[in-house]
């Protein structure tokens, strides 16, 4: 049955995928100069951290890492209630002229990325902004695409993708689950 819970990536597959994504980011930037890896709260942040670590293992030079909380830039604040929790935003370097790679766990409607682009514009004018996501599940509602993708999956109606990371969920995994069902 297509609606049964299944594992898309286990911990080892996830680690491999992140290593490959790290390589692709360095390739895209032709090195690590001016690179700033910015994770979107919450699961984008530990993923960004791992990408930075993976890049550090193979390349010389320091890659900056930041965190972005896009809650205050969401386009649905007039309608959602109660108020979503606001996380912290922390960009440790001036992003003017830099290559900023925005990292998130799942790319779906594209609305989160739209909010992230607006927020980054309030911090400065990067030379380039790229998008890296662990899972692209389709279903875009805005003209947004990812430059680096861990895995592309087809999700049928009634299903959802859950990314779990050690830091927040106690284990690494990507699960395809039925909507309304707790993992």
């Amino acid at each position, binding site marked *: 049955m297509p609606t049964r819970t299944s594992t898309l990536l286990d911990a080892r597959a996830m680690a491999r995928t992140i290593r490959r994504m790290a390589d692709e980011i360095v390739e895209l930037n032709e090195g690590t100069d001016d690179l700033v890896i910015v994770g979107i709260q919450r699961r984008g942040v530990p993923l960004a951290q791992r990408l930075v670590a993976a890049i550090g293992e193979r390349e010389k030079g320091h890659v900056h890492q930041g965190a972005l909380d896009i809650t205050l830039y969401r386009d649905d604040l007039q309608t*959602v209630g*109660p*108020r979503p929790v*606001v996380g912290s935003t922390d960009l440790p370097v001036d992003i003017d002229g830099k290559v900023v790679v925005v990292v998130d766990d799942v790319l779906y409607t594209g609305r989160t990325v739209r909010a992230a682009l607006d927020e980054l514009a309030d911090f400065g004018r990067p030379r380039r902004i790229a998008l890296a996501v662990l899972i692209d599940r389709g279903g875009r509602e805005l003209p947004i695409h990812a430059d680096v993708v861990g895995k592309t999956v087809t999700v049928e109606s009634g299903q959802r993708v859950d990314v779990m990371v050690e830091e927040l969920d106690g284990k690494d995994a990507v699960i395809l689950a039925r909507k309304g069902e707790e993992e």
Partner: protein
Amino acid sequence: MTAPLGKDLLGLESLSGDQIRLILDTAEPFKEISERAIKKVPTLRGATIVNLFFEASTRTRVSFEFAEKRLSADSVNIAASNSSVSKGETLVDTARNLEAMRIDMVVIRHGASGAAQFLAERIESNVINAGDGTHEHPTQGLLDLLTLRDHFKRLDGIKVCICGDVLHSRVARSNIWGLKKMGAIVGVCGPRSLLPNAIDDMGVTVFNRIEEAIEWADALNILRLQLERMQGGYIPSLREYNRVFGVTRERLDRVKRDVLILHPGPMNRGVEIDSDVADGPFSVILDQVTNGVAVRMAVLYLLSGGKPELAEAAKKGGER
């Protein structure tokens, strides 16, 4: 439940510890916005807020105004002295007229205790109490809590003494409610004439001598001695007040611990607090002002609430 705080913020007495914690935790990320080059987020774009001040205020009004502007709300200031209020319009008529212009929130400062609640019960808009008579000043209480929590990394179990004119102070009342709900131990210190009769029933320790209060406390919240109280016969003279109850360097030096110094402002230097204390290393008076903007942003954000009946388009927002 659409808004975790309900429609209005009228005081800290009616809030639970969890609600207070939510406001403080929400204020935390808002601090960073004021550090940005572009100190603005689009969160309250399109919301209209009226700052309705029936009493003089600079710090609180400016702090609310910055909070509103940094959230991209449109705000209007009305000072009662030069409005239709001076022509005899009632509070409710003023507010209903404003509501007829489709506003979303009212921030009200009023000399009568209970004015904010009176208004909140009669209009649809969210009402935020910016100080009502001698009742409460919840956002001041919250910014004091945030400043204390920043310093001690907790509120549970810390000893805070509120010094001075507790009787007339809405700041004192909001502090006592807020601190107690967060598990802090509260003391008060001041001349008996400036402590409420019912103070013993509020579950606080009463100190008659400032030296004892300093000896006991982790932090002092020193209230402004409202100078008009002297005419009221509550204290004999400012000089005497300073001699007996003033927080001075010398008195602080006598205890070996650091005692954190808070003051809601505006200060009377040389009366309730000496300059070398106000400007000293343990003073967090300016941090209070900085935190005031973040706390008010958090309150505006949490109260502004959503309209879930329109949420169809937003359904996918939190989903993967």
